[in-house]
Protein backbone atom coordinates (compact mmCIF):
# COMPACT_ATOMS: atom_id res chain seq x y z
CA UNK A 1 0.00 0.00 0.00
CA UNK A 2 1.21 3.46 -0.83
CA UNK A 3 2.25 5.61 2.05
CA UNK A 4 2.03 9.33 1.98
CA UNK A 5 5.47 10.82 2.39
CA UNK A 6 4.73 14.36 1.32
CA UNK A 7 5.59 16.57 4.33
CA UNK A 8 3.20 19.28 3.10
CA UNK A 9 0.41 16.85 3.39
CA UNK A 10 -0.15 17.00 7.10
CA UNK A 11 -0.66 20.75 6.78
CA UNK A 12 -3.16 20.66 3.94
CA UNK A 13 -5.24 17.72 5.08
CA UNK A 14 -4.60 17.17 8.75
CA UNK A 15 -6.92 14.29 9.56
CA UNK A 16 -8.15 11.13 7.98
CA UNK A 17 -11.87 10.70 7.62
CA UNK A 18 -13.24 7.85 9.76
CA UNK A 19 -14.53 6.19 6.59
CA UNK A 20 -11.10 6.17 4.96
CA UNK A 21 -9.35 5.13 8.19
CA UNK A 22 -11.70 2.17 8.37
CA UNK A 23 -11.01 1.19 4.76
CA UNK A 24 -7.27 1.45 5.31
CA UNK A 25 -7.39 -0.67 8.46
CA UNK A 26 -9.49 -3.23 6.57
CA UNK A 27 -6.96 -3.37 3.74
CA UNK A 28 -3.99 -3.66 6.09
CA UNK A 29 -5.67 -6.54 7.89
CA UNK A 30 -6.44 -8.37 4.64
CA UNK A 31 -4.55 -11.57 3.87
CA UNK A 32 -4.36 -10.78 0.14
CA UNK A 33 -2.29 -7.61 0.24
CA UNK A 34 -0.65 -8.44 -3.06
CA UNK A 35 -3.98 -8.36 -4.90
CA UNK A 36 -4.88 -4.99 -3.37
CA UNK A 37 -1.49 -3.73 -4.62
CA UNK A 38 -2.18 -5.01 -8.15
CA UNK A 39 -5.51 -3.16 -8.09
CA UNK A 40 -3.59 0.07 -7.39
CA UNK A 41 -2.94 -0.06 -11.13
CA UNK A 42 -6.64 0.25 -11.95
CA UNK A 43 -7.76 3.82 -12.55
CA UNK A 44 -11.07 5.57 -12.87
CA UNK A 45 -11.49 6.00 -16.64
CA UNK A 46 -12.84 9.52 -16.25
CA UNK A 47 -10.36 10.77 -13.64
CA UNK A 48 -6.90 10.21 -15.11
CA UNK A 49 -4.39 8.87 -12.58
CA UNK A 50 -6.90 8.36 -9.75
CA UNK A 51 -6.89 4.73 -8.64
CA UNK A 52 -10.08 2.94 -7.65
CA UNK A 53 -8.56 2.55 -4.18
CA UNK A 54 -7.92 6.28 -3.84
CA UNK A 55 -11.37 7.11 -5.19
CA UNK A 56 -12.82 4.91 -2.46
CA UNK A 57 -14.89 2.55 -4.58
CA UNK A 58 -12.69 -0.53 -4.06
CA UNK A 59 -14.28 -2.10 -1.00
CA UNK A 60 -13.14 -5.69 -0.62
CA UNK A 61 -10.76 -8.27 -2.06
CA UNK A 62 -10.91 -11.99 -1.26
CA UNK A 63 -9.36 -15.14 -2.63
CA UNK A 64 -11.60 -18.18 -2.33
CA UNK A 65 -10.64 -21.56 -3.85
CA UNK A 66 -8.36 -19.98 -6.43
CA UNK A 67 -10.95 -17.41 -7.43
CA UNK A 68 -10.48 -13.72 -6.73
CA UNK A 69 -13.56 -11.85 -5.58
CA UNK A 70 -13.49 -8.07 -5.83
CA UNK A 71 -16.22 -5.83 -4.46
CA UNK A 72 -16.70 -2.37 -5.90
CA UNK A 73 -19.34 0.21 -4.95
CA UNK A 74 -20.45 2.68 -7.63
CA UNK A 75 -20.02 6.42 -7.07
CA UNK A 76 -23.29 7.58 -8.61
CA UNK A 77 -26.01 5.08 -9.48
CA UNK A 78 -25.87 5.92 -13.18
CA UNK A 79 -22.08 6.04 -13.36
CA UNK A 80 -21.26 4.83 -16.89
CA UNK A 81 -17.68 3.99 -15.88
CA UNK A 82 -18.60 0.88 -13.88
CA UNK A 83 -18.41 -1.57 -16.79
CA UNK A 84 -15.01 -0.26 -17.89
CA UNK A 85 -13.71 -0.49 -14.31
CA UNK A 86 -14.88 -4.12 -14.11
CA UNK A 87 -12.98 -4.95 -17.30
CA UNK A 88 -9.86 -3.10 -16.15
CA UNK A 89 -9.82 -5.00 -12.85
CA UNK A 90 -9.97 -8.33 -14.70
CA UNK A 91 -7.29 -7.21 -17.14
CA UNK A 92 -4.81 -6.11 -14.45
CA UNK A 93 -5.35 -9.28 -12.42
CA UNK A 94 -4.89 -11.51 -15.46
CA UNK A 95 -1.52 -9.86 -16.13
CA UNK A 96 -0.23 -11.29 -12.84
CA UNK A 97 -1.88 -14.65 -13.40
CA UNK A 98 -5.30 -14.39 -11.77
CA UNK A 99 -7.72 -15.56 -14.43
CA UNK A 100 -10.70 -16.50 -12.32
CA UNK A 101 -11.97 -13.13 -11.17
CA UNK A 102 -15.45 -12.18 -10.05
CA UNK A 103 -16.18 -8.46 -9.71
CA UNK A 104 -19.30 -7.73 -7.72
CA UNK A 105 -21.05 -4.37 -7.53
CA UNK A 106 -22.33 -3.69 -4.05
CA UNK A 107 -24.67 -0.84 -3.15
CA UNK A 108 -24.16 -0.99 0.60
CA UNK A 109 -22.43 0.73 2.22
CA UNK A 110 -23.26 3.57 -0.16
CA UNK A 111 -20.14 5.31 -1.43
CA UNK A 112 -19.33 8.72 -0.03
CA UNK A 113 -16.48 11.07 -0.85
CA UNK A 114 -15.34 10.50 2.75
CA UNK A 115 -14.07 7.12 1.54
CA UNK A 116 -11.56 8.86 -0.72
CA UNK A 117 -7.91 8.70 0.35
CA UNK A 118 -5.83 11.79 1.15
CA UNK A 119 -3.57 10.77 -1.76
CA UNK A 120 -6.61 10.74 -4.00
CA UNK A 121 -7.64 14.24 -2.93
CA UNK A 122 -4.11 15.48 -3.47
CA UNK A 123 -4.06 13.90 -6.91
CA UNK A 124 -7.35 15.57 -7.89
CA UNK A 125 -5.85 18.92 -6.96
CA UNK A 126 -2.76 18.21 -9.04
CA UNK A 127 -4.94 17.72 -12.12
CA UNK A 128 -6.81 20.95 -11.27
CA UNK A 129 -9.96 19.41 -9.88
CA UNK A 130 -10.89 20.86 -6.47
CA UNK A 131 -11.12 17.93 -4.02
CA UNK A 132 -14.32 17.36 -2.00
CA UNK A 133 -14.65 18.76 1.49
CA UNK A 134 -17.37 18.42 4.05
CA UNK A 135 -18.36 22.08 4.07
CA UNK A 136 -18.37 22.37 0.27
CA UNK A 137 -15.92 25.29 0.55
CA UNK A 138 -14.57 25.38 -2.94
CA UNK A 139 -11.12 26.87 -3.36
CA UNK A 140 -9.35 27.26 -6.68
CA UNK A 141 -7.05 24.30 -7.38
CA UNK A 142 -4.70 26.58 -9.30
CA UNK A 143 -4.20 29.67 -7.13
CA UNK A 144 -5.84 28.50 -3.86
CA UNK A 145 -8.17 31.50 -3.73
CA UNK A 146 -11.39 30.99 -1.77
CA UNK A 147 -13.22 33.52 -3.92
CA UNK A 148 -14.94 31.21 -6.37
CA UNK A 149 -18.35 31.20 -8.08
CA UNK A 150 -20.56 28.27 -8.93
CA UNK A 151 -21.24 28.16 -12.67
CA UNK A 152 -23.21 24.92 -12.82
CA UNK A 153 -24.18 22.22 -10.36
CA UNK A 154 -23.02 19.59 -12.82
CA UNK A 155 -19.62 19.59 -14.50
CA UNK A 156 -18.03 17.20 -16.96
CA UNK A 157 -19.38 14.19 -15.03
CA UNK A 158 -22.18 13.66 -12.51
CA UNK A 159 -19.71 13.69 -9.60
CA UNK A 160 -18.42 17.18 -10.33
CA UNK A 161 -19.75 20.74 -10.43
CA UNK A 162 -18.36 23.61 -12.46
CA UNK A 163 -16.81 26.70 -10.81
CA UNK A 164 -14.82 29.76 -11.70
CA UNK A 165 -12.08 31.43 -9.68
CA UNK A 166 -12.61 35.15 -9.18
CA UNK A 167 -8.90 35.75 -8.62
CA UNK A 168 -7.26 33.95 -11.54
CA UNK A 169 -10.38 33.40 -13.71
CA UNK A 170 -9.66 29.67 -14.01
CA UNK A 171 -12.76 27.60 -14.75
CA UNK A 172 -12.49 24.29 -12.91
CA UNK A 173 -14.37 21.23 -11.74
CA UNK A 174 -15.10 20.61 -8.06
CA UNK A 175 -15.50 17.00 -6.98
CA UNK A 176 -18.73 17.35 -5.01
CA UNK A 177 -18.88 16.24 -1.40
CA UNK A 178 -21.34 13.39 -1.50
Amino acid at each position, binding site marked *: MRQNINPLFSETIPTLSPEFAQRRAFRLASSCGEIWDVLDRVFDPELPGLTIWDLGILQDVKEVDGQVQVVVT*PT*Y*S*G*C*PAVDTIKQDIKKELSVVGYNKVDVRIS*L*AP*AWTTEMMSPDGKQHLKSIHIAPPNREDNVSCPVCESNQTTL*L*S*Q*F*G*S*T*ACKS*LHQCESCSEVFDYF*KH*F
Partner: protein
Amino acid sequence: MNTKNKNLYRFLVGLADDSVILSHRLSEWCSNGPYLEEDIALSNVALDYIGRARMFYQYAVEIEGKGRTEDDIAYFRNEREYTNLLVHELPINDFAFTMVRQYFLDVFYCLYLEKLTASSDSTVAAIASKAIKESRYHLKRSEPWIEQLSQGTEESKRRVQLALDELVNFVGELFVMDDWEKELLSSAIAVDRTELQSEWDHQVQTFLSTSGMSFDDSQVQIRGGRNGIHTEHLGHLLSEMQFLQRSNPGLNW
Protein backbone atom coordinates in the same frame (compact mmCIF):
# COMPACT_ATOMS: atom_id res chain seq x y z
CA MET B 1 -43.24 -16.67 -7.73
CA ASN B 2 -45.14 -16.66 -4.48
CA THR B 3 -47.55 -13.85 -3.72
CA LYS B 4 -45.02 -11.84 -1.76
CA ASN B 5 -42.52 -11.98 -4.61
CA LYS B 6 -45.19 -11.15 -7.18
CA ASN B 7 -46.05 -8.04 -5.19
CA LEU B 8 -42.39 -7.15 -4.77
CA TYR B 9 -41.74 -7.62 -8.48
CA ARG B 10 -44.63 -5.36 -9.39
CA PHE B 11 -43.52 -2.78 -6.85
CA LEU B 12 -39.92 -2.75 -8.13
CA VAL B 13 -40.91 -2.56 -11.79
CA GLY B 14 -43.24 0.36 -11.00
CA LEU B 15 -40.44 2.32 -9.35
CA ALA B 16 -38.04 1.43 -12.16
CA ASP B 17 -40.58 2.49 -14.80
CA ASP B 18 -41.03 5.85 -13.06
CA SER B 19 -37.28 6.40 -13.23
CA VAL B 20 -36.59 5.19 -16.74
CA ILE B 21 -39.45 7.20 -18.25
CA LEU B 22 -38.48 10.41 -16.47
CA SER B 23 -34.87 9.77 -17.46
CA HIS B 24 -35.87 9.49 -21.09
CA ARG B 25 -37.80 12.74 -20.91
CA LEU B 26 -34.85 14.55 -19.32
CA SER B 27 -32.47 13.13 -21.91
CA GLU B 28 -34.55 14.85 -24.61
CA TRP B 29 -32.94 18.08 -23.41
CA CYS B 30 -29.50 16.80 -24.38
CA SER B 31 -28.15 19.32 -26.94
CA ASN B 32 -31.41 21.31 -26.62
CA GLY B 33 -30.85 22.98 -23.21
CA PRO B 34 -31.08 26.78 -22.89
CA TYR B 35 -27.29 26.90 -22.51
CA LEU B 36 -24.44 24.44 -22.33
CA GLU B 37 -24.20 24.09 -18.53
CA GLU B 38 -27.93 23.50 -18.21
CA ASP B 39 -27.76 20.99 -21.01
CA ILE B 40 -25.07 19.07 -19.13
CA ALA B 41 -26.95 19.34 -15.84
CA LEU B 42 -30.21 17.94 -17.23
CA SER B 43 -28.35 15.10 -18.91
CA ASN B 44 -26.61 14.27 -15.64
CA VAL B 45 -29.91 14.20 -13.77
CA ALA B 46 -31.19 11.88 -16.51
CA LEU B 47 -28.18 9.66 -15.92
CA ASP B 48 -28.94 9.44 -12.20
CA TYR B 49 -32.46 8.28 -13.02
CA ILE B 50 -31.17 5.68 -15.50
CA GLY B 51 -28.96 4.34 -12.72
CA ARG B 52 -31.91 4.23 -10.34
CA ALA B 53 -34.04 2.41 -12.92
CA ARG B 54 -31.28 -0.13 -13.53
CA MET B 55 -30.94 -0.94 -9.83
CA PHE B 56 -34.68 -1.53 -9.49
CA TYR B 57 -34.93 -3.55 -12.74
CA GLN B 58 -31.92 -5.68 -11.84
CA TYR B 59 -33.43 -6.54 -8.49
CA ALA B 60 -36.84 -7.17 -10.12
CA VAL B 61 -35.47 -9.75 -12.57
CA GLU B 62 -33.57 -11.39 -9.72
CA ILE B 63 -36.83 -11.72 -7.78
CA GLU B 64 -38.63 -12.95 -10.88
CA GLY B 65 -35.97 -15.65 -11.34
CA LYS B 66 -36.67 -16.40 -15.01
CA GLY B 67 -33.23 -15.39 -16.23
CA ARG B 68 -34.50 -12.22 -17.91
CA THR B 69 -32.32 -9.12 -17.96
CA GLU B 70 -33.02 -5.47 -17.18
CA ASP B 71 -32.99 -4.80 -20.95
CA ASP B 72 -35.72 -7.37 -21.56
CA ILE B 73 -37.97 -5.49 -19.18
CA ALA B 74 -37.13 -1.99 -20.39
CA TYR B 75 -37.14 -2.62 -24.14
CA PHE B 76 -39.65 -5.38 -24.75
CA ARG B 77 -42.78 -4.30 -22.95
CA ASN B 78 -45.62 -2.39 -24.56
CA GLU B 79 -47.29 0.75 -23.36
CA ARG B 80 -49.98 -1.14 -21.46
CA GLU B 81 -47.32 -3.18 -19.67
CA TYR B 82 -45.49 -0.07 -18.46
CA THR B 83 -46.56 0.93 -14.98
CA ASN B 84 -45.01 4.35 -14.40
CA LEU B 85 -47.04 7.06 -12.72
CA LEU B 86 -48.32 9.46 -15.37
CA VAL B 87 -46.48 12.57 -14.20
CA HIS B 88 -43.18 11.05 -15.35
CA GLU B 89 -44.30 10.54 -18.95
CA LEU B 90 -45.70 13.98 -19.77
CA PRO B 91 -43.75 15.64 -22.59
CA ILE B 92 -40.94 18.02 -21.63
CA ASN B 93 -42.90 20.96 -23.03
CA ASP B 94 -40.85 24.09 -22.30
CA PHE B 95 -38.01 24.57 -19.81
CA ALA B 96 -40.37 25.94 -17.13
CA PHE B 97 -42.57 22.84 -17.36
CA THR B 98 -39.57 20.50 -17.16
CA MET B 99 -38.22 22.30 -14.10
CA VAL B 100 -41.57 22.56 -12.27
CA ARG B 101 -42.13 18.84 -12.76
CA GLN B 102 -38.56 18.18 -11.62
CA TYR B 103 -39.05 20.34 -8.55
CA PHE B 104 -42.32 18.56 -7.67
CA LEU B 105 -40.67 15.18 -8.08
CA ASP B 106 -37.49 16.19 -6.25
CA VAL B 107 -39.52 17.22 -3.21
CA PHE B 108 -41.51 14.01 -3.49
CA TYR B 109 -38.49 11.71 -3.85
CA CYS B 110 -36.66 13.35 -0.96
CA LEU B 111 -39.64 12.48 1.27
CA TYR B 112 -40.35 9.08 -0.28
CA LEU B 113 -36.80 7.74 -0.46
CA GLU B 114 -36.03 8.85 3.06
CA LYS B 115 -38.79 6.54 4.29
CA LEU B 116 -37.72 3.82 1.87
CA THR B 117 -34.18 3.74 3.33
CA ALA B 118 -35.83 2.05 6.34
CA SER B 119 -37.42 -0.69 4.21
CA SER B 120 -37.27 -4.16 5.73
CA ASP B 121 -35.93 -5.40 2.39
CA SER B 122 -32.20 -4.67 2.58
CA THR B 123 -31.72 -4.31 -1.20
CA VAL B 124 -34.60 -1.85 -1.49
CA ALA B 125 -33.15 0.07 1.47
CA ALA B 126 -29.69 0.13 -0.15
CA ILE B 127 -31.05 1.44 -3.46
CA ALA B 128 -32.99 4.13 -1.60
CA SER B 129 -29.89 5.15 0.37
CA LYS B 130 -28.01 5.58 -2.88
CA ALA B 131 -30.79 7.41 -4.69
CA ILE B 132 -31.79 9.84 -1.96
CA LYS B 133 -28.42 11.55 -2.02
CA GLU B 134 -28.92 12.23 -5.70
CA SER B 135 -32.47 13.54 -5.26
CA ARG B 136 -31.35 15.91 -2.50
CA TYR B 137 -28.80 17.32 -4.88
CA HIS B 138 -31.35 17.59 -7.70
CA LEU B 139 -33.61 19.61 -5.38
CA LYS B 140 -30.77 22.06 -4.75
CA ARG B 141 -30.86 22.77 -8.46
CA SER B 142 -34.58 22.69 -9.27
CA GLU B 143 -35.65 24.89 -6.35
CA PRO B 144 -33.54 27.93 -7.30
CA TRP B 145 -34.73 27.55 -10.88
CA ILE B 146 -38.39 27.80 -9.85
CA GLU B 147 -37.53 30.80 -7.70
CA GLN B 148 -35.70 32.46 -10.56
CA LEU B 149 -38.40 31.77 -13.14
CA SER B 150 -41.20 32.80 -10.76
CA GLN B 151 -39.52 36.11 -9.98
CA GLY B 152 -38.28 36.72 -13.50
CA THR B 153 -40.17 38.31 -16.38
CA GLU B 154 -43.92 38.27 -17.01
CA GLU B 155 -43.23 35.63 -19.63
CA SER B 156 -41.30 33.34 -17.29
CA LYS B 157 -44.00 33.71 -14.61
CA ARG B 158 -46.70 32.93 -17.14
CA ARG B 159 -44.88 29.76 -18.17
CA VAL B 160 -44.38 28.61 -14.57
CA GLN B 161 -48.08 29.18 -13.90
CA LEU B 162 -49.04 27.19 -17.01
CA ALA B 163 -46.82 24.34 -15.82
CA LEU B 164 -48.34 24.43 -12.33
CA ASP B 165 -51.86 24.38 -13.76
CA GLU B 166 -51.05 21.44 -16.02
CA LEU B 167 -49.18 19.38 -13.41
CA VAL B 168 -51.68 19.87 -10.64
CA ASN B 169 -53.87 17.14 -12.15
CA PHE B 170 -51.09 14.61 -12.16
CA VAL B 171 -49.30 14.92 -8.81
CA GLY B 172 -52.08 13.28 -6.80
CA GLU B 173 -51.17 9.89 -8.22
CA LEU B 174 -47.85 10.04 -6.37
CA PHE B 175 -49.74 9.60 -3.11
CA VAL B 176 -52.01 6.69 -3.99
CA MET B 177 -51.37 3.19 -2.66
CA ASP B 178 -52.14 0.26 -4.93
CA ASP B 179 -53.20 -3.10 -3.52
CA TRP B 180 -49.82 -4.79 -3.89
CA GLU B 181 -48.11 -1.79 -2.33
CA LYS B 182 -50.45 -2.02 0.67
CA GLU B 183 -49.53 -5.69 1.02
CA LEU B 184 -45.85 -4.80 1.03
CA LEU B 185 -46.49 -2.02 3.51
CA SER B 186 -47.78 -4.56 5.98
CA SER B 187 -44.38 -6.28 5.88
CA ALA B 188 -42.61 -2.89 6.08
CA ILE B 189 -41.04 -3.27 2.61
CA ALA B 190 -42.98 -0.42 1.01
CA VAL B 191 -43.71 3.10 2.20
CA ASP B 192 -47.11 4.61 2.90
CA ARG B 193 -47.41 7.20 0.16
CA THR B 194 -50.60 8.68 1.62
CA GLU B 195 -48.66 9.83 4.68
CA LEU B 196 -46.35 11.95 2.55
CA GLN B 197 -48.95 14.15 0.94
CA SER B 198 -49.47 16.74 3.66
CA GLU B 199 -45.73 17.30 4.07
CA TRP B 200 -45.30 17.56 0.29
CA ASP B 201 -48.18 20.05 0.04
CA HIS B 202 -46.78 22.07 2.89
CA GLN B 203 -43.26 22.26 1.46
CA VAL B 204 -44.35 23.03 -2.07
CA GLN B 205 -47.01 25.60 -1.14
CA THR B 206 -44.73 27.38 1.33
CA PHE B 207 -41.97 27.60 -1.22
CA LEU B 208 -44.24 28.68 -4.07
CA SER B 209 -45.91 31.37 -1.98
CA THR B 210 -42.52 32.95 -1.17
CA SER B 211 -41.96 33.06 -4.91
CA GLY B 212 -45.37 34.63 -5.48
CA MET B 213 -46.87 31.55 -7.12
CA SER B 214 -49.54 29.11 -6.05
CA PHE B 215 -51.66 26.27 -7.24
CA ASP B 216 -54.93 24.76 -6.22
CA ASP B 217 -54.42 21.10 -5.42
CA SER B 218 -58.06 20.17 -4.94
CA GLN B 219 -58.82 19.55 -8.61
CA VAL B 220 -59.53 16.31 -10.40
CA GLN B 221 -56.65 13.85 -10.28
CA ILE B 222 -55.79 11.79 -13.33
CA ARG B 223 -54.73 8.25 -12.50
CA GLY B 224 -53.97 4.94 -14.14
CA GLY B 225 -50.22 4.62 -14.65
CA ARG B 226 -49.67 1.75 -12.23
CA ASN B 227 -52.37 -0.22 -14.03
CA GLY B 228 -50.97 0.44 -17.49
CA ILE B 229 -53.49 3.11 -18.44
CA HIS B 230 -51.43 5.95 -19.87
CA THR B 231 -51.67 9.29 -21.58
CA GLU B 232 -51.29 9.34 -25.35
CA HIS B 233 -47.66 10.42 -24.92
CA LEU B 234 -46.13 7.20 -23.59
CA GLY B 235 -46.48 5.20 -26.80
CA HIS B 236 -44.52 7.82 -28.73
CA LEU B 237 -41.82 7.87 -26.06
CA LEU B 238 -41.50 4.08 -26.07
CA SER B 239 -41.31 3.89 -29.85
CA GLU B 240 -38.29 6.17 -29.73
CA MET B 241 -36.71 4.53 -26.70
CA GLN B 242 -37.22 0.95 -27.86
CA PHE B 243 -36.84 1.01 -31.62
CA LEU B 244 -33.16 0.04 -31.72
CA GLN B 245 -33.65 -3.07 -29.55
CA ARG B 246 -36.91 -3.95 -31.28
CA SER B 247 -35.29 -3.84 -34.71
CA ASN B 248 -32.04 -5.50 -33.57
CA PRO B 249 -32.95 -7.65 -30.53
CA GLY B 250 -30.02 -8.30 -28.21
CA LEU B 251 -27.87 -5.60 -29.76
CA ASN B 252 -24.92 -4.58 -27.57
CA TRP B 253 -22.68 -1.54 -27.57
